[in-house]
C-alpha cells in the first residue's frame, strides 16, 4: 500500500452483494434500454465502439480508415501495433522539448501520446497496467537533475518513467513475465516497500497487494478465499532480499533472503519471489482475475463466467498470453452486445483525448493535465494501490463541472498559442452541411453514432435554429457567421456535454 494515500481512498471494489443483487442490477440495466440503445448493428458502429475501447476515440478520418479495413482488419491493426509506424507522434513530442522530470510535463506527455499515437492499444494497455500494477509518483518521487548539470551528464534514474517504458514494452506480454518484471521494477520496489523486506524482518506490503489487487483478489468466483493471512506472511518471506542497489537498480541481496521453507497455497518449498509468481500463475483464480480485469477494462463490469470463459481458456492454454486474451475479447460477441454499448464511463484521460481527437485539435496540451487532475485522474499517481476505481466514481459534482468546463475552454478557443481552435467551419464545409438538421445529424453521428433519443435530437435542432441565424438560400456561409461561431460551437459543446458522451 502506498504510504501517500493522498486522496480519498474510495474503491467501491469489494463491496460485494449477493448474486441476486448483481443479476437484478445488470438485468435492469440491460432490459430497460430504450430503442435508442439497441445493440450495435452496423459495421461502422462496431468499429467506432472498438476504437473507443481499444484506444481513445477517433477523428472522422481515423474512423473512416478503420471502417475501410473491416472490423476484423481493424482489430488486427490495433493488436499488431508493432508494425504501425509511430514516428510522426515521436517527432511531435520531441519538438515540444518537454521536461519529463517535471510532473506536469510528464502527464502532458502521456496525454499527448494518447492523443497522437497511431498505436492506440499500446497506450491503452499501458494505462491498464498502470491501473492494475500500481505505483505512483507521490511515494516514488522523481529525482531532479542537478541545477548545474551539464547536458552531457547522466540524468538521474527516472523510476516512474522507466516503469512506464516497461509497461509499454510489455503491453501485450505474458502475464507471468509482466509479474516477474514488475516485482523487480524499482518504482514498485519503492512503492510497496520491497526494499525494506528483509530476512527475519519481513515487510508484507508487496506480498499482500500482489495477491489481493494484482493477481488473485480476496475471493475466487465461488466466493471462497483465494489465500490466507499465512500465505501473505509466507510470500513476504519469499520476496525478502529483493531490493535496490546504490545505483537504484534492482538487486537481489542473498544475505537478506530468507532461504527457509515456506508454505504457500498449501505447497511447501524453499520458495523465492519467482516461485511465488509461478504459484500464483498456477492458482485457479489468477486466470479468472486477469480475464475479469481485462474484460472490465475494455468491455463492461461484472461479466458472467460464461462470457469470461473463452478468455480464461486462453489464459490457461497459453500460460497467460495477454495478447491472445485481448484478441479474444475484441472478437467476442459480448464485446459488441447491448450490455457493452456505452457501458463504460470515460476516464478523464479518455474524455479529454476523445474530445481532442474528434475535434482534430492541434495542441501541446498545456494545462490539460491540471484539468485531468481536477476530474480525478493524475496520471502516474493513482489515488492508492488499487488504482482508479473508475465507473460511476468518475462522476461527482466537482468532476462533472470540470468536464463541462474544460470542454467549454477547448471549444471556445478562438486564438491560443497552445491549442489551435477546432476547425468547425471546415468540418461544416467539407461535409456540405447546408441546413441545421444536417449539422446536428452529422455531429451526432460522428460523436455519438447517431444513437440518441429523437427528443434529444429535436432539442439540439431547436438550439441551432433559435435566433434564425442560418443564411438565406444562396448566401454562402462564413467562418465568422454567428451560426458557426456561436451555434455550431454551442452544438458541439452540448453533444460533448451530454450524458452519452461521458460514456465509451
Amino acid at each position, binding site marked *: 500500500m502506498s504510504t501517500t494515500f493522498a486522496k480519498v481512498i474510495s474503491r467501491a471494489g469489494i463491496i460485494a452483494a449477493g448474486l441476486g443483487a448483481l443479476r437484478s442490477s445488470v438485468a435492469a440495466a440491460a432490459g430497460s434500454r430504450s430503442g435508442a440503445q439497441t445493440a450495435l448493428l452496423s459495421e461502422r458502429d462496431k468499429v467506432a465502439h472498438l476504437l473507443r475501447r481499444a484506444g481513445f476515440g477517433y477523428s472522422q478520418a481515423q474512423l473512416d480508415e478503420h471502417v475501410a479495413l473491416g472490423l476484423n482488419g481493424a482489430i488486427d491493426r490495433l493488436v499488431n501495433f508493432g508494425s504501425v509506424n509511430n514516428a510522426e507522434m515521436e517527432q511531435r513530442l520531441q519538438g515540444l522539448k518537454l521536461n519529463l522530470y517535471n510532473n506536469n510535463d510528464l502527464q502532458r506527455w502521456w496525454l499527448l501520446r494518447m492523443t497522437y499515437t497511431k498505436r492506440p492499444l499500446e497506450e491503452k494497455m499501458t494505462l491498464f497496467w498502470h491501473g492494475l500494477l500500481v505505483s505512483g509518483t507521490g511515494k516514488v518521487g522523481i529525482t531532479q537533475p542537478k541545477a548545474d548539470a551539464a547536458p552531457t551528464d547522466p540524468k538521474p534514474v527516472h523510476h516512474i518513467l522507466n516503469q512506464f517504458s516497461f509497461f509499454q514494452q510489455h503491453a501485450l506480454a505474458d502475464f507471468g513475465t509482466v509479474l516477474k518484471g514488475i516485482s523487480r521494477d524499482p518504482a514498485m520496489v519503492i512503492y510497496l516497500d520491497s526494499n525494506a523486506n528483509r530476512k527475519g524482518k519481513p515487510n508484507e506490503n508487496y506480498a499482500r497487494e500482489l495477491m489481493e489487487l494484482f493477481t488473485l483478489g480476496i475471493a475466487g468466483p465461488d*466466493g471462497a478465499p483465494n489465500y490466507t493471512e499465512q500465505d501473505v506472511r509466507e510470500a513476504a518471506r519469499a520476496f525478502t532480499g529483493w531490493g535496490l542497489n546504490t545505483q537504484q537498480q534492482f538487486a537481489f541481496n542473498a544475505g537478506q533472503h530468507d532461504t527457509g521453507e515456506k508454505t504457500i497455497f498449501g505447497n511447501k518449498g524453499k520458495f523465492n519471489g519467482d516461485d511465488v509468481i509461478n504459484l500464483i500463475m498456477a492458482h485457479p483464480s489468477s486466470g479468472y482475475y486477469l480475464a475479469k480485469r481485462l474484460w472490465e477494462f475494455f468491455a463492461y463490469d461484472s461479466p458472467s463466467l460464461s462470457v469470461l470463459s473463452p478468455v480464461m481458456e486462453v489464459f490457461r492454454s497459453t500460460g497467460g498470453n495477454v495478447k491472445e486474451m485481448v484478441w479474444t475479447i475484441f472478437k467476442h460477441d459480448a464485446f459488441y452486445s447491448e450490455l457493452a454499448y456505452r457501458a463504460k464511463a470515460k476516464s478523464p484521460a479518455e474524455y479529454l483525448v476523445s474530445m481532442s481527437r474528434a475535434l482534430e485539435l492541434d495542441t501541446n496540451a498545456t494545462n490539460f493535465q491540471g484539468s485531468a487532475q481536477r476530474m480525478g485522474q493524475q496520471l502516474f499517481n493513482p489515488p492508492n494501490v488499487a488504482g482508479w476505481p473508475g465507473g460511476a*466514481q468518475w462522476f461527482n459534482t466537482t468532476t462533472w463541472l470540470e468536464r463541462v468546463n474544460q470542454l467549454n475552454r477547448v471549444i471556445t478557443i478562438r486564438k491560443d498559442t497552445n491549442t489551435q481552435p477546432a476547425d468547425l467551419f471546415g468540418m461544416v464545409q467539407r461535409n456540405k452541411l447546408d441546413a441545421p438538421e444536417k449539422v446536428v445529424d452529422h455531429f451526432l453521428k460522428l460523436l455519438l453514432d447517431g444513437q440518441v433519443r429523437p427528443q434529444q435530437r429535436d432539442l439540439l435542432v431547436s438550439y441551432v435554429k433559435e435566433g434564425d441565424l442560418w443564411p438565406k438560400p444562396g448566401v454562402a456561409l462564413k467562418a465568422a457567421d454567428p451560426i458557426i461561431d456561436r451555434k455550431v460551437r454551442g452544438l458541439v459543446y452540448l453533444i460533448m456535454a451530454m450524458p452519452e458522451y461521458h460514456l465509451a
Partner: protein
Amino acid sequence: MSMLSRRIFIQDGFKVVSLGLAMPHILTRAVQAAGAEAGRDLSVFQSPDNAPNDQMAKRTLIVVQMAGGNDGLNTVIPFNDDVYLQNRKNTASPEDQIHKLDDRFALHPAMGGMKGLWDQGKMSIVHGVGYPQPSFSHFRSMDIWQTANPEGKADEGWLAKLVKGSVDRRGHPFAGFAAGGTLPPALMSPDYPIPAVSNVDNYKILADPRYAQDAGSRQDALVKLYQNYPGGAPFAQVLQSTEEGTLSSIDLLQQAHKAYTPAVEYPKDSFATGLKLLAETITGNLGVKVGYVTIGGFDTHSNQRNQHQRLLQSLSDGLKAFWDDLSAQGKADDVMIMTWSEFGRRVAENGSNGTDHGTATPQFIIANNMKGGHWGDPVNLKDQDKGNLKYTTDFRSVYATVMDGWLGAPADKLLGARFPTLGFLGNGHAM
C-alpha cells in the same frame, strides 16, 4: 495442489460448474444501473433548511477519515504497558514528549491541540474499535466501515443512507457535503447527489465568453438533454443526479463562500483546507447534516515515525483550528466531529521501523457539552490473536450513538440491528 482443489470450479474442458460470482463494484454497478424510471422528485433539491425548530435538526456531524489504517497504539499510547514498550522500541515516542491524559494513556506528541480539547472535556476517546473477523485489506475494511455492513454488502454508503432518508426528510443539495474532489463511498448513493467540492472558485459553470447572451439557452438545452437521457440507460442515475445536484448547489455555495471569513488562521495543508470549506458551509447555514473530509497517508509500513508525526500534527492542528473557528462563529454547539480509520496496526513493529496492517484502533469524538473521557474497554495487549489486538467496541455502536443521540436518526433501522450505544453524549442529550 490439494488445498486448492476445493476452489477448482472448472471441469470437463472448462465447463463452468460453479455459478458463484465474486461481486466487486456492486456499489458502482448499483449507482450506474437502472431504476431512474421511479421518477425523481425535483422538489427535494430546493432551499436549504434554514429554520429548523428542533435542536437536532440544526446539528452537523463532521466525519474525518484517517485513510490507510492509523496506528492506534502510537496515537492513544498505553505508555505504561510493558507489552507496548517491548513491541514498539523503534516507533514509540519519547515519554517526556507525550501528552499524558492520566496514569495509563497519553496522546502522541504532535497532538497538543487535541489534548487541549480533552482537557476542556470536549473530546472522548472510544477504545478498541473494530468488528468481528477483521479484514486486513484496506479496501474491504474500508468498505465495511463505509457501508456499516460486516461483509461490505450494500448499494449505498451508510452516511448517504443517513442523510437521504432519516435526518433530512425535506432534502436539499447540501444534506451531505464532501470536502475534496472525490466523493467517499460512505456518501455515495445511486439516486441522491451529494456535492464533493475541492475549490469553490472553480465551482461554477463556464460559458462561451463571446456570447454571454447564448449562455442561458445553451444551459437550458443542457438541462433538457439530461432530462431526456433515458432513465434506464447506463449511468443514467448518477449522471442525471450529478448534473442536477451540481446546478442546484452552485449559487448557494458561492453565496456562502462570499459571506465567510475564517475567525482563525488555518494550517495550509489540504486537510485543513477541507475543514475550512466545511466551516464555510456551516457558517453559511447551508444545512449540512454530514460533512466529510479525509486525511490520508496512515499506511505506515516503513519509517513510520516522521510520517506519523506529520499526519497527527496535521490532524490535531487542523481540528483545533476548525473548532476554534466554529466556536468564534457561534456554531460549535451544533457540531460533532467523529474520526475513523479502517484498522490499526499489528502490535509488533515490522523490520522496517514501520507497522503492518492490524485490527482495532481508537476513534475520537469531539463536541461541546459532551461527556469526555474514555469509552469502550481499552484493548488488552496481553490477549492477542496472531499478533493482533482483539477489538472491544463494535464500530456500529459508535455509529448508533451518533446517529441516535446526535442526529436523532433511527439507528436500529439504518444499521439493520440494535447496537448498544455508548455514553459519551451524557445526560444532556437524548440517548
